[in-house]
């Protein structure tokens, strides 16, 4: 009996949190269009998030392109379809692997960072101090961060995709003697509007999800250092789960409009 109550309570708390997060997102849309705009802080956040995640995205993207091509090569060779390699790799990376991997990296790098930063500001009363000084902390801390991740994630995904294709082209060049020009000609022949647009649009939602969950968890952090740790940790867990849900919805919707 007590087990079932505890389980019911957890479900209740889960839905209560989803409700709170929806209100939090609603407040974001209410505040984002209101003056004063915190442009300087927005640019600072864009620079921090973009610049600090760039190397990680480049390294990861390059390795994924390299490994993915190396792993796929033997199977394609067995089927005599190795000439399809650039097409297969480019579609897989641009449509799915690039956006999801980069978003997961950013959920770990940016989402947990936002959760920990705002959480520690909350427990050390810095957010209260901001409010007392007549500045709207939601606008200054939350709106700028969500907006910055939403702007920067598509750019990071484009970089990640490009680097992954470079990695793949290097393997094809070394293993199969395919020139870089031929490889990229095949890539651009294969990729179409219906590959690039839905993939880019979904990264905007990915970015929004990372920013929303990170700021929500940090801004509503419980007191104490344990609270900060929880905020950072749960921000990554919730975001990762949310990214896959968004991805599923995005693929489903893309299939309706573009018949992928």
């Amino acid at each position, binding site marked *: 009996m007590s087990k079932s109550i505890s389980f019911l309570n957890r479900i209740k708390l889960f839905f209560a949190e989803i409700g709170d997060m929806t209100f939090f997102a609603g407040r974001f849309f209410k505040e984002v269009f209101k003056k*004063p705009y915190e442009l300087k802080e927005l640019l600072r956040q864009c620079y921090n998030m973009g610049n600090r995640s760039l190397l990680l995205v480049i390294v990861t993207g390059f390795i994924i392109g390299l490994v993915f091509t190396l792993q796929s090569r033997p199977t394609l060779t067995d089927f005599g379809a190795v000439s399809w390699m650039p097409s297969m790799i480019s579609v897989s990376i641009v449509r799915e692997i690039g956006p999801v991997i980069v978003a997961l990296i950013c959920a770990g790098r940016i989402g947990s960072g936002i959760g920990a930063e705002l959480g520690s500001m909350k427990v*050390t009363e810095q957010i209260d101090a901001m409010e*007392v000084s007549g500045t709207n902390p939601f606008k200054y801390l939350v709106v700028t961060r969500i907006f910055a991740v939403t702007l920067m994630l598509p750019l990071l995904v484009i970089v990640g995709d490009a680097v992954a294709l470079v990695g793949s082209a290097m393997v094809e060049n070394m293993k199969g003697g395919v020139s870089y020009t031929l490889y990229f000609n095949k890539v651009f022949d294969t990729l179409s509007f219906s590959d690039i647009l839905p993939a880019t649009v979904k990264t905007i939602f990915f970015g929004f999800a990372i920013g929303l969950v990170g700021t929500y968890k940090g801004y509503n952090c419980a007191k104490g250092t344990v609270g900060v740790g929880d905020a950072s940790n749960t921000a990554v867990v919730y975001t990762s789960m949310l990214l896959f849900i968004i991805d599923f919805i995005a693929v489903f919707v893309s299939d309706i409009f573009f018949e992928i």
Partner: protein
Amino acid sequence: MNNENKKLVLELKDIHKSFGNNHVLKGFSLKLYEGENLVIMGKSGSGKSVMVKCLVGLVQPDSGRIMINGQNIITMGQKELDFLRTEIGFLFQGSALYDSMTVRENLEFPLRRHKDKIENFEGTEAAVKQALESVGLLNTIDLMPDELSGGMQRRIALARALILKPKIIMYDEPTTGLDPITANEIIELMRNIQKKYNTSSLIITHDVDCARVISNRMILLVDGINYAEGTYEQLSNSSDPQIRAFFKN
């Protein structure tokens, strides 16, 4: 201290605040007059910090009235409240300096939206330097908060609270966690600021020495109500054991 002829700057009337089943404030009231140093003493967890957060709108009371300069802050819109907050300086218990900003940026922060509030404003740089000079820490202007000692952080936080030239300053445990020498320096600084700017101060503390040196009047907060009120001498000589317990060393 006779306050009859003085202007009332802040009034709390019958404030109630609960967190779940925990009734923290049960009808607390106070009046703060112009130029007065009012000390609120109470045990840890007695609701002193909740009360002071109600005063600046960080916590919404369940019922009661909070009047600052004749305006009820409970019924006030966000814009009016933000403007009124520029009339109030707040020194947080843990200093609450923005740790990702330098001392200069910490002090510039309140000025971003409220430069127009300062008469004869000579520029952000001048205002920052003047505030830092008043706490004797001009040389720390380009340092980060984590490069400063606890006492220095408290003084910088005080400079930040002063930068908009507030008429009321609220101190939440200003000497807690500091060694006796640094605590005395902070108390001296608070007295100097009160003299220089003629501010009204509300000081939340359980430091008896701080209360003795700085208070014009004291209120003891016990069980969510104002249990006793008077000067330091009146309260410290009281025969009531609950009151005497506060003044035992």
